């Protein structure tokens, strides 16, 4: 049988979560929701970096991914429009 350690459980869970949130991020028609899902993915990515023993990168991803990327995306959505689609 498989011998599985807690660390590997963590990795599996995180992988599944990340793929799920990435799919959510491109699936939503509402761009704001899509950005939220992207923020979740970035958060989990940072956690992934963290448990792969890369705290430097985790901090950078935290600063950039959690705050700045979302910020500029939302500013852009505010400057343009919120829904993806043909209406206009």
């Amino acid at each position: 049988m498989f011998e599985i350690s807690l660390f590997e459980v963590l990795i599996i869970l995180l992988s599944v979560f990340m793929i799920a949130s990435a799919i959510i991020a491109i699936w939503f028609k509402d761009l704001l929701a899509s950005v939220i899902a992207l923020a979740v993915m970035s958060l989990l990515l940072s956690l992934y970096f963290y448990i792969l023993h890369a705290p430097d990168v985790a901090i950078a991803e935290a600063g950039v991914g959690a705050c700045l990327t979302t910020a500029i995306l939302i500013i852009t959505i505010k400057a343009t429009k919120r829904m993806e689609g043909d209406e206009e």
Partner: protein
Amino acid sequence: MKNEEMNEGKMTVIVQTIAALLFPLALIFSFYVIMHGHLTPGGGFQGGAIGASAVVLLIVAYGVKHVEEKMSEGGFSVFESLGGLIFVVVAIFGLFLATSFLANFLVNEPIFGKIPGWGESPLNSGGILPILNIAVGMKVIGGLSAVVLILALISREGEEK
């Protein structure tokens, strides 16, 4: 909350107070990350990103106009150019004082020389790495803040039209 205040882009008093409390905290933490880049996780980019996030926090809590009056994007870009200049100048110093471009010409000696009575200390190690950390930190704080500030200003300008 009045309509005018909403148009200024301010959030509620509660958010503002907490932002005012978190701003120095984030700023000092960003300086900590930059200064201790060669000892603990972090460094110029990470600290710079945190510092820029502190500015973004102010932008979101107090509105772009309010922040722009205090710190213009031109100031940020000057700050950024200065950081870049320091980096390149230190790199060229490596060429003149030591052997090659970007050489660590201060390795195994403290940055500001040995001051009597200070003893060995980790903060003062690493040769030119702390200097480069500070340069990159300046650059990233200036740069990323300027990006968000410009984009926010542009977005606001578009709404006013």
